[in-house]
């Protein structure tokens, strides 16, 4: 298949890399943030565990099942928030939410790999796949 296939803006190489080799996969024991979330319309699910210490995300892991978009998004998210303060992580979640919905978003923060998910905004049926892990993050940190 040629490299300018219309799906290439969705399935970027970096996304496939995270899907195939997920970062921070697993379950942290004895953590203070433990969130299970699923997308009831499609069956995707995520189990997010985080260790929050001194207002920082000291460690984070995820477990789950789902499509390439939902699982790569979870992988990228864990990578991006590890070591960040709770405020920074929540701010990132907010920026991500704007980006994925195709809205104007704060580009002063370096999104790294996450930026590859921008193409998802052009596939409205898949936006929910991308946001699952971030919703779990917000839930976990708000309840913390």
């Amino acid at each position: 298949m040629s490299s300018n296939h219309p799906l290439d803006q969705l399935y970027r190489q970096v996304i496939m890399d995270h899907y195939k080799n997920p970062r921070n996969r697993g379950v942290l024991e004895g953590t203070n943030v433990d969130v299970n979330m699923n997308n009831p319309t499609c069956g995707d699910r995520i189990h997010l565990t985080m260790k929050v210490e001194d207002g920082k995300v000291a460690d984070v892991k995820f477990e789950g099942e789902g499509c390439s978009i939902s699982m790569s998004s979870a992988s990228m998210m864990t990578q991006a928030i590890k070591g960040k303060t709770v405020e920074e992580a929540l701010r990132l979640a907010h920026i991500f939410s704007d980006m994925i919905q195709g809205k104007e978003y704060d580009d002063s923060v370096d999104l790294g790999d996450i930026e590859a998910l921008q193409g998802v905004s052009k596939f409205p049926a898949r936006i929910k796949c991308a946001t699952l892990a971030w919703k779990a993050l917000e839930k976990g940190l708000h309840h913390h």
Partner: protein
Amino acid sequence: MNVNNIRALFPILHQDVNGHPLVYFDSAATSQKPLPVIEALDRYYREYNSNVHRGVHTLGTKATDAYEGAREKVRRFLNAQSAQEIIFTRGTTASLNLVASSYGRANVKEGDEIVITYMEHHSNLIPWQQLAKQTGATLKYIPLQEDGTIDLRDVEETVTEAAKIVAIAHVSNVLGTINPVREIARIAHERGAVVVVDAAQSAPHMKVDVQELDCDFLALSGHKMCGPTGIGVLYGKKKWLEQMEPIEFGGEMIDFVELYDSTWKELPWKFEGGTPIIAGAIGLGAAIDFLEQVGLDAIAAHEHELAQYALSRMADIEGITVYGPKERAGLVTFNIDGVHPHDVATVLDAEGIAIRAGHHCAQPLMKWLGVTATARASFYLYNTKEEIDRFIAALQKAKEYFSHVF
């Protein structure tokens, strides 16, 4: 049956999606609507929109005649003995909830059993789960064979004298299995249980005769059989409906209202509280006329041919798992190794092909299959072999695409 003539009656099919002519393979979720149905709705709203069963004016009479005429069409379509046995509801879910809430609450008690199968849609599962919780009855499942069919010996074993209700899908929305409802009804009746049939996936596609099936209740949805959304049917044997209490109270369903007591209208209206779904019923009547004109047997034969053709073409592609038996209704549920069904659906959508991906409102069945989600292509009278060829080519593309990006 001339598919081109049929397709000409479905305006929605004649459009490009993502630069390709639309292939609509999601009719098990909802079917498309033919011109006779669209025009019947249009005519009702333009020419005789009025409330039914009240007032003496001309439009009211016209609307009442059309609404009750639709009921008679449904009676004929299902070969019910009387139009009193046909209740209009919002859809299959509402119909099944009505049986569970009214018949179920009155007749099921602690220690009784309610029997369903592993292949039920959530709409024919959760009402019974709730009923079991509320009454203290036990919910039991008839197991499935390896190929997703039901062995009558398992029915004999699971349905005991304690069973009060046996609820089963006529056709599985995931596996396409056509269940032996008549035989299951015989066994259930021997044990003193009533049989509730979820006909959402059968009534649109094959002749359904409630007297031949000898079911006690049967539910269907208009929108899956070329009719509008928001209209469905509950068929019930008169002897049960007569003794059942309404679950919705208000206007339209009453006979006499006094300060502290009221009496209900006779069947079927005691179950149709509030202004009924007039346009929906009229649209469903038009859909039934259309389906009968084409012929339910011809539709079933056409879909059988499409499903068998799809199965044989898919068998040639390596790495595709198909779920369900060979003999099946017109749908194929599958997975491609290493590609999540959402990703399959997105690749197909880019080719203009609409399929369903997910758990198909059958989470216990997904668990039984050992998967979290599947992809499903479902066919109807307007689909063609050429469309299946495009579907097969797109599946191959999806496979290639994902092996390329990995």
